[in-house]
């Protein structure tokens, strides 16, 4: 039978499930077996085009599906058994939900006859995942499997994407039913009824853009999700509007472009946040004014008009009140808006060069405090490590072919500041939930999706240990993933908060780690320890070109901080700067 589908054969529910996945174009499923999903595993071999990646923990299965989806824009698929298998997915689903990532999670469920009886490994997973999925289904009959799964894929990838969970009882997997992939096709997707970008709002937007003297584009994850990268850049170039990015919008625009300023928000560079505070027009594209981006809302960009282009109407006026809301797919809205702007060309000089000059002056002022400009003083800084990994990839001409997958913490912010992303979907990171342990499994998903790309994990010593068991999965799957563990001996970001807000009360933030290189070796993975800057690039090159998985433990400065930092309650311009005489980065005394 395999993937050649004869018309309306009678199959078991389990076979229908896999045949439907194959029909939806799925080639990889990340999963872990167990009693309630065993009928599916029993027929897995009949579908040789469906590759199953055996994970080491179901949370990782969800992160892998997530990484797969972020790397490609396609729906990622994960699978788990009932009870503990299903509950282990929860963190991964929540991570995907808050970052709008399309995944379909399939869970086995106890037989429909015993539903609700606390049967062995029964858990109400549709109840548990209600707030952390875009939608979920409980399927109790074999006939429902194909239509429900197809609807799940449609929901996951349509509108504002998100995870969908399908819980399938064991008897539904075992029962027989006719399978007709075409007949199981869902009704056309219904766009959110409150989408609207009527011409009056368009005209208002045009007027605001034409009048603005200090406009700035805020590029969010929606730019990538919508595939509007080129439109955004074209708009910026045509009207000379600088672009600031959210963490998930960093790879939406090429960092090296003169109009691209970098990341905004809590650890955004000073010139970016100052520009937002001084702007007279914000063009918010596919972003949701998260608190990490706005700082204190009452003091957020006080003198600007705000245009919000967003696909989810419930995001409008949620955190920041906007003047014009264009509710719809960003790419579609921009394709309507840009011709309107072009018919009223503005004199080239009016937007100004003054404004860009002002912003660039801010860059100059910041550079003296920038750790990246610190000469090699014998210490190893995480910022330098990440910047050198970027240099190495750039020098090899591999930037467009490199995906960085970060964990959560200081290293994540340094990555955002010092790895200059060049191509869409080249940065994979957990933004909204900030899930430690995300990097390694998400990188597996990305590498499976894009085997031809160089995939780097950048993780802290803390987060890496949360899902380090997936090293085994890498080996079992033969994936050449490069792993950089940034070891500072601390839960670094927690330590930094304790330093700035809790008077250096380092309670439970120092963390003991195994010898990461030996840990890798125990898995049959080669590795190296790097303690000085000169060794970063050669080892990064070694890792990238080895054709095998490779782990580098970077032993970096222990009490380094991410700057600038906007402490909770402060406005964007009220940032903590790196001390100009940071004792940590003082040059060694002249002998």
């Amino acid at each position, binding site marked *: 039978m395999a993937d050649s589908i004869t018309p309306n054969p009678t199959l078991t529910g389990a076979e229908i499930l896999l045949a439907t996945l194959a029909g939806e174009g799925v080639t990889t499923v990340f999963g872990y077996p167990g009693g309630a999903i065993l009928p599916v595993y029993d027929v897995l071999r009949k579908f040789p085009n469906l590759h199953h990646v055996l994970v080491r923990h179901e949370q990782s299965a969800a992160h892998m599906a997530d990484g797969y989806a972020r790397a490609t824009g396609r729906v990622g698929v994960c699978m788990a058994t009932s009870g503990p298998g299903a509950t282990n997915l929860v963190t991964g689903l929540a991570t995907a939900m808050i970052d709008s990532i399309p995944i379909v999670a399939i869970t086995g469920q106890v037989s429909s006859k015993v539903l609700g009886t606390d049967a062995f490994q029964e858990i109400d997973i549709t109840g548990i995942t209600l707030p952390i999925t875009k939608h979920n289904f409980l399927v109790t009959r074999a006939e429902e499997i194909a239509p429900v799964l197809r609807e799940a894929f449609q929901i996951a990838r349509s509108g504002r994407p998100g995870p969908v969970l399908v819980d399938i009882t064991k008897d539904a997997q075992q029962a027989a039913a006719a399978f007709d992939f075409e007949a199981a096709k869902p009704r056309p997707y219904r766009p959110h009824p409150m*989408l*609207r970008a009527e011409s009056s709002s368009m005209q208002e937007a045009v007027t605001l853009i034409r009048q603005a003297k200090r406009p700035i584009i805020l590029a969010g994850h929606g730019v990538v999700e919508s595939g509007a990268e080129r439109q955004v850049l074209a708009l910026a170039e045509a009207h000379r509007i600088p672009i600031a990015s959210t963490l998930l919008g960093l790879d939406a625009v090429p960092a090296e472009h003169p109009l691209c300023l970098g990341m905004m928000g809590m650890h955004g560079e000073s010139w970016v946040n100052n520009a937002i505070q001084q702007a007279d027009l914000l063009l918010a594209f596919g972003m949701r004014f998260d608190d990490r981006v706005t700082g204190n809302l009452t003091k957020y960009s006080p003198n600007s008009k705000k245009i919000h282009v967003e696909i989810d109407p419930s995001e409008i006026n949620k955190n920041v009140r906007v003047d014009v*809301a264009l509710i719809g797919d960003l790419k579609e809205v921009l394709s309507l808006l840009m011709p309107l702007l072009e018919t009223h060309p503005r004199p080239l000089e009016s937007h100004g060069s003054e404004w860009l000059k002002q912003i660039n002056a801010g860059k100059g002022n910041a550079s003296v405090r920038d750790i990246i400009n610190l000469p090699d003083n014998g210490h190893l800084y995480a910022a330098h490590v990440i910047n050198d990994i970027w240099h190495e990839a750039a020098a090899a001409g591999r930037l467009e072919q490199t995906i960085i997958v970060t964990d959560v913490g200081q290293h994540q912010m340094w990555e955002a500041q010092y790895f200059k992303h060049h191509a869409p979907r080249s940065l994979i990171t957990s933004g909204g939930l900030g899930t430690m342990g995300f990097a390694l499994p998400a990188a597996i998903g990305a590498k499976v999706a894009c085997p031809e790309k160089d995939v780097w994990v950048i993780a802290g010593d803390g987060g890496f240990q949360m899902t380090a068991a997936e090293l085994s999965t890498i080996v079992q799957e033969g994936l050449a993933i490069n792993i950089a563990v940034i070891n500072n001996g601390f839960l670094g970001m927690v330590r930094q908060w304790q330093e700035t807000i809790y008077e250096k009360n380092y309670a439970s933030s120092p963390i003991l780690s195994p010898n990461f290189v030996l840990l890798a070796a125990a898995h049959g993975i080669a590795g190296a320890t790097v303690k000085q800057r000169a060794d970063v690039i050669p080892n990064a090159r070694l890792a990238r070109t080895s054709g095998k998985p490779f782990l580098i433990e970077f032993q970096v400065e222990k009490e380094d901080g991410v700057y600038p930092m906007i402490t909770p309650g402060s406005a964007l311009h009220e940032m903590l700067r790196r001390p100009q005489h940071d004792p940590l980065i003082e040059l060694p005394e002249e002998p």
Partner: protein
Amino acid sequence: MLHTFIALVQDRPGVLTRVASLFRRLNINIVSLTVGESERAETSRMTIVCDAHENAADRIRASLYKLETTISVDEVNRTDAVVRELCLIKVAAGPSHPHGLHSRSQIFELSQVFRARVVDLAPESIMLEMTGSASKIEGLLQVLRESGYTILEVSRTGRMAMRRGHHTSRVLEALGTRQSLDLQEFPTQDPDALPSDEILPGAFEE
């Protein structure tokens, strides 16, 4: 302030949980929620009354629409909708009560004034049924109490609302429009547009 939403939703297991869970997540208290069959097959109509900031309505509607099980959502106010509530009241009345046997006839009289109906008569109690606005129901309860009667039990449905006039056709029109992906086709005269004087919901202010 109180907001009243009328929602058409799929009649499937778990739909009520989805709606209720949404309000819990938004940290909004549901004052009342009624649900029952509608004129359409496999479709329920809900009336949800909730207490939220005056500018929260659009977000609540938008969020309700994000539920895959929602078909349409309408927000109504007192003037453009008929709002009704059903109430059952059990009052102590019988020979052993203060007004003695006289109490029954007095309750009959009171209920006539309020257009309530007597639906059950037991040796020691009377059950009244009343439909009307919430304030009318509260009026009857107050009069009963002030007349010295003991109210044994009250059961209220919470508000049900229906828009006056030809609203249904408007909903269907909207359903037709939304099938179109072409943004330009969206109506320019938009009854649901955000009011220009809208300010931030208080809950998000520092």
